[in-house]
């Protein structure tokens, strides 16, 4: 009788539930992913192959050494974009394929908290891979760095990450409606973005309006600002001033995260109404 009347678990609600959901969803990405060492190897090796190829192209062209550093940095940042595409945007699609999405929606926690947890975990786990690519690339090709302002560098990086993962949360909502095309869409958003965002060359080299259009992707401005801040001659390759890029990234961070919240609620409603939450169109 006592056992029946006794509370068998503590039921969290409100902010406590929200925070616990974030931590719970981030956990497998921060801790779980590190347990699979082979993942780490692949996540570092794949971007490194591109880095090596592009560095050797620059070497064949006898390009100035700064460009080698640009490629190494761009290669490291690809890890974040790939994480956004395959582990943020497509994540709800994968969950749907495996039958977990309906459970997510049925559970008494917020979907926004799940997305935030995914973002937080993905950001931290990917940062480790990006650091590994940077260290390896710098060691292999003798890249040297000269940071002009650590504070600005930290601000740019953090704001770029918040805006980028906010964008990833927005895209995750859109991918909720996709079926088989989700895989292809994520696949399509690789090389064109590497091109438009200037992962392997300064964005300033593109026509102004192309570069301005590509700036909607936070990594474009983030990389441009970071290149200016960590390479001695970086300022001459800058598309905008670092100060302006910081302001734009701050605006994007707020806009993307807030939009993601409303978009998620709206698209979740559509997906439930049209029966796409459990649908699996292979």
């Amino acid at each position: 009788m006592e056992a029946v009347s006794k509370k068998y678990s503590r039921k969290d609600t409100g902010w406590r539930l929200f925070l616990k959901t974030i931590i719970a969803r981030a956990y497998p990405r921060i801790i779980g992913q590190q347990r699979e060492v082979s993942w780490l190897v692949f996540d570092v090796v794949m971007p490194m192959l591109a880095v090596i190829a592009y560095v050797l192209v620059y070497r064949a062209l006898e390009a100035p050494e700064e460009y080698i550093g640009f490629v190494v940095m761009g290669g490291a940042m690809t890890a974040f974009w790939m994480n956004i595409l395959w582990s943020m945007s497509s994540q709800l699609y994968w969950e749907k394929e495996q039958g977990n999405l309906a459970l997510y929606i049925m559970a008494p926690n917020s979907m926004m908290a799940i997305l935030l947890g995914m973002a937080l975990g993905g950001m931290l786990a990917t940062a480790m891979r990006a650091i590994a690519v940077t260290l390896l690339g710098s060691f292999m090709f003798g890249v040297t760095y000269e940071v002009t302002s650590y504070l600005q560098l930290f601000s740019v990086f953090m704001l770029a990450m918040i805006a980028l993962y906010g964008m990833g949360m927005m895209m995750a909502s859109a991918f909720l409606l996709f079926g088989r095309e989700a895989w292809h869409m994520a696949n399509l958003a690789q090389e064109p973005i590497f091109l438009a965002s200037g992962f392997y060359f300064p964005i300033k080299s593109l026509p102004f309006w192309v570069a301005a259009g590509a700036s909607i992707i936070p990594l474009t401005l983030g990389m441009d600002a970071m290149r200016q801040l960590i390479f001695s001659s970086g300022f001459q390759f800058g598309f905008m001033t670092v100060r302006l890029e910081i302001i734009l990234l701050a605006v994007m961070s707020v806009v993307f995260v807030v939009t993601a919240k409303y978009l998620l609620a709206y698209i979740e409603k559509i997906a439930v109404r049209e029966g796409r939450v459990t649908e699996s169109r292979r």
Partner: protein
Amino acid sequence: MQTTTSWRSFRMAAWLGWLIESNWTDPFLFAVYSIVKPLSGAAILVIMYGIISGGNFNTPLFPYIYLGNAFYIYVGAVMTGVSWAVVDDREHYKTLKYMYIAPIYIPVYLLGRGVARFITGSIAVFITIIAGVLFLKVPLHFEEINWGLFFVTLILGVVMLALLGLLLAGITLTVARHEGFIGEATAGALYIFSGAVFPLDVLPAWIRPIGYFMPTTYWLELLRRSLVGNVAQAFPTLANFSNMELLGILLGLSIFFGVVSIWVFRWCDARARELGLIDRTTNY
């Protein structure tokens, strides 16, 4: 195995592969999807080259990079097209076990599944080269192209790549996790070692022998030579070899890798059957 069974396996697999590749969207979006990716990859190299050369596209290095990159599309498309069929059928559609008990010939079925990507890859290669000729002054003169050498090299190379794809498919059969990365990693490594976008001399001397052992090195060199002749021969790496010598090396290496691929596939296939890996799904 009867010829009719092999042909039927190949034909149906090619059709199935085409439907899987193309029917997820309308033809227009599919065409855009097939073209945008490779063109973007080429555009990255063009911009890199343009920045450093100050927009001078008349050096021999530009067609070397551009054509090498364009034809390299086949490597990713054909090789991973064949090996990815294992991942798709086993993990995604969960039909590989049914394929194995159907009256078809599995290696030929897998080769057939690569046809769809060969077709989309061919379109991408064609459009990339045409864009280079029209907008970037790639020195391609139709009357000067050695068509015989071009088609012999192309066909030999595609067969060689398909057989390498079979090798990867065999390895994929025995691997539970990361099978999706195998094709990508191999294609990425070959991109570096084959001198696709830079002459092999740029590589450190101790790595170059790997490049000399890869059939793709000679394949890309012959394709360049057949299209732009002397421009491609401007680089010292393979300058001492005549076209026929390169063709002989390519043929020899293709036969060697072909035999190894078939042997590896058979071994992996037998092991996968023995260990019950044909219907294993990991949801990984």
